[in-house]
């Protein structure tokens, strides 16, 4: 489903060039739950940003579902993200002026789903993340774990092909982290959605089918962990 070839990302910091990614190549199949791991500064978030079309590599190729996505215009990338991807960020990234339900249905409305249908889907996903009773609460009225679950419901509402999660448990305690990861595992299994998650917690490995471990912008090793669950 996803093919990355020789991905490089070079940042200029003053006169110094930083090679955040230095020739990364891999394939990810449909329905895989892939963990991108590595120490801080290894390039894992940079790689996720490239794959999710939030940033462009300096060099390399990315194809998703057979499409050369790096040739897309900005507006086509935006449309692609809306239609194919779901995003979960470290800091939840909810719109503070929207209630939990409104945050969830926003991508559906942007896709043109009628409001009643979007609301029904939003309520359904909030129910799945066990937040049906908090649908009218604003993000500021929810705990960190609850906000992250709202973000997961938002990522799922358009039934995306790929779910990108950038350290989704970084701000959560272990109980909430486990609840979130259980949810990812469940989604991955039940809906056969591809999940690509950045993590630096070793214990998260137990949820992944495969781990791509980065070090200094290069793949240090790939581990197949199928049969974890």
């Amino acid at each position: 489903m996803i093919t990355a070839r020789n991905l490089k990302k070079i940042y200029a910091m003053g006169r110094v060039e930083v090679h955040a990614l230095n020739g990364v190549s891999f394939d990810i199949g449909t329905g895989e739950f892939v963990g991108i791991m590595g120490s801080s500064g290894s390039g894992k978030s940079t790689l996720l940003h490239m794959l999710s079309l939030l940033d462009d590599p300096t060099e390399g190729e990315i194809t998703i579902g057979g499409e050369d996505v790096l040739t897309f215009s900005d507006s086509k990338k935006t449309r692609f993200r809306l239609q194919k991807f779901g995003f979960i960020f470290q800091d939840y990234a909810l719109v503070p002026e929207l209630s939990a339900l409104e945050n969830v249905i926003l991508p559906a409305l942007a896709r043109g789903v009628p409001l009643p249908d979007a609301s029904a889907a939003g309520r359904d996903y909030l129910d799945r993340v066990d937040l049906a009773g908090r649908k009218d609460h604003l993000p500021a009225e929810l705990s960190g774990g609850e906000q992250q679950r709202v973000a997961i419901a938002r990522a799922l509402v358009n039934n995306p092909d790929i779910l990108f999660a950038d350290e989704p448990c970084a701000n959560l305690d272990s109980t909430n982290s486990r609840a979130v990861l259980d949810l990812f595992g469940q989604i991955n299994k039940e809906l056969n959605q591809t999940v690509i998650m950045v993590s630096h917690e070793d214990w998260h490995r137990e949820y992944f089918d495969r781990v791509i471990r980065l070090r200094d912008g290069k793949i240090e090793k790939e581990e197949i962990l199928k049969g974890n669950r």
Partner: protein
Amino acid sequence: MFENLRVSVFLAARALQRGGRGRVLLNIIVIAFVFTNMIFLPSVISGAVESYNVQTIDFMTSDIVIGPRVDERYIEDADTLLGRINRIPGVIRASARFSMPVSVDFEENAVSIEVKAFDPRDEVEVTRIHEFIEEGSFLGSGDRNEILLGVLVTGHEDKSKDFYDSLGGAAVGDVVTVRYANGVAREYRIKGIVRTKSYIADYMAFVTADEMESVLGGTGPNTRASEILVKATDDADLSALKRMILSFGVGEEVKTWEDATSDIVAESVESFNIINNITVIGSLIIAIVVIFILITIKTFTNRKQIGILKAIGIKKSVIINSYVMQVFFICTFGVILGLVILEAMVLYFTAYPIEFPDGTVTPLVDAGMLVENTVMLYLSSAVAGFIPAWRITNEKILDAMRGA
């Protein structure tokens, strides 16, 4: 297209509803006063122009004014002409006026003004001077040795209160000496004092046509006139009536009141328009600056949120439109509040008109100007809202999300 608009409305509505109502209210109030400022001064100026027009018709020209032929000083055989004009359909009455420069003396005071002579029976049909007698009474047909003076001519005992040279507070019953341009001097009792609030009409003197005939001292009756004023029926089209008068063989110069005053009014209106434009531009600049600052602060504060929206697949245009819609909301309620303030001010100044030297002025809100200024306010505000939103949404997603 519709989906995009729907999401923009959704985001804008929630931002307004939950994103600091006090700030929104403050901005609505600012726009309301900007709008009031844009409309009120032009409406006062429109009111002043309207007041001047009404005064012109009521006291100076009536609806149509007929002057001497080109290169002639007087209308000859005015009586015959009056008879012809009075028979034209659409004409209520015509009144001949004879004007002559005079010097009026009272005690140690003297003023140089113009005296107008008319037949009071005709004059009351074509002008409203007789309705504005402050003291005494209007001239009667056949009155001799009596004069009607404008209030600016009689003036005040305390001359510092006078706009022009005056007779120092002459009153009804006092006797003044009038020295005509032809050398004749007559003593007249002041029969009435006129206060029309038209600075032109209030700085004149009026005598009867019979008295003027005696002053001119011809062998026969005076058949000359300086001008003939024509009062038309209420439903008359003045341009059509003017053409009809000409078609009746009148060879004199025929003008509607607008033709007669257009040069003076056009110059005044042009000057007023310059002031109007400065006021409108000033107001628009205030509106643009306020909206620009508001949206700049808002988008800068929401930078991360804008980055998130772009990341999850919301189009830039949807995000920009959500801010422009917030601006439209603020403008709409600002304009509504502005209209309320404006209406209150118009009501107040209708009850208590503004006193100008040449009359009282009631603000006159012109619908065309109102629409034009409202559209300009909307367009300026939309641009002022669009630019900062466009700038922030054009940032790289990750830069915006980091809020760096």
